[in-house]
């Protein structure tokens, strides 16, 4: 993993670190992440009535 390129957590395409795809960023207001930002693996995502959790086998769980 480099520190200059990461992955968009919505579409899985590359994004330079510290930036986001504008369309994906706005869609993410009403969607949980689907791809791990660090490794691009598809995460196991559980949406709950309040909040969500997303698990990458390599990088662990994030919640929102």
């Amino acid at each position: 993993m480099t520190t200059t390129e990461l992955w968009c957590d919505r579409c899985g395409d590359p994004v330079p670190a510290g930036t986001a795809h504008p369309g994906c960023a706005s869609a993410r207001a009403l969607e949980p992440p689907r791809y791990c930002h660090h490794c691009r693996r598809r995460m196991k995502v559980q949406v709950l009535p309040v909040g969500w959790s997303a698990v990458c086998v390599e990088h662990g769980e994030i919640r929102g």
Partner: protein
Amino acid sequence: MPEILDQARTQVLGDGVGLDEAGVLAVLNLPDEHLPAALQLAHDVRMRWCGPEVEVEGIVSLKTGGCPEDCHFCSQSGLFTSPVRSVWLDIPSLVEAAKQTAKTGATEFCIVAAVRGPDDRLMKQMREGVAAIKAEVDIQVAASLGMLSQEQVDDLVDMGVHRYNHNLETCRSYFPNVVTTHSWEERWETLRMVRDSGMEVCCGGILGLGETVEQRAEFAAQLAELNPHEVPLNFLNPRPGTPLGDRPVVEGKDALRAIAAFRLAMPRTILRYAGGREITLGDLGTRDGLLGGINAVIVGNYLTTLGRPATADLDLLDELKMPVKALSATL
């Protein structure tokens, strides 16, 4: 005032008899300048035949993704390149979700699974899950598990599931364009069994799948014939990787016209704002819909996408002086 609204005032508001397919089509074709009058009439119909209460519901996905069916709008089909992965919710988390839902004042908690129909594992999870919720949470449990056998219908009744959701999704004539792995008639058969079992029938669909206005009217008429206790109205939220992923969202005014028209077709049903309202209508749309025939909402998140915070909807109901339907009133 357009003739169709005069007719609806007498027939629907006055006598409680819903518009037929031609009447619904006339409402769907009303020019923009008559939309406020149509929404006002639909609101009056809802207030007269349903009352001011709003039924609040939360939903949760017990089994997400990996579905063998090919509903072209659905990110949970395993047949598309959607990024949604298969995942099961454990029982403690299910009970916690029911508690969170009950805290909002919701009286309905719907457990949903992305399946063609339940297998033994899912029915076992349901039996344990529903029992655990009933032991700990004061809320009515509904379910949406796809197509059922008669035995499964009986089992759900036995568990104390009081309402079953099974959407026809779209009209009969358009359904084969949206789903090829099962038929509209198979869905209808499940609905018939649910109805005969005494469970409440919840059946709606999604607008914006590419159906014509005529087919929207056909759908309203077919739902009216089924006469469900509840009709959830979704608006397509195009999901990446699905065959309908590039479709445009329904235009806000068309969505509101549809809300008014569906209310005028079904004066007594619980007409619920379900998925896609945030995308199609934005924050203001929730208000317009609640003043145009809607009398139920899903609060909080959906199955794979997120909703507005429940408090935003509850504050709005407060402002509109629409009381949240109480549990005692629904039992």
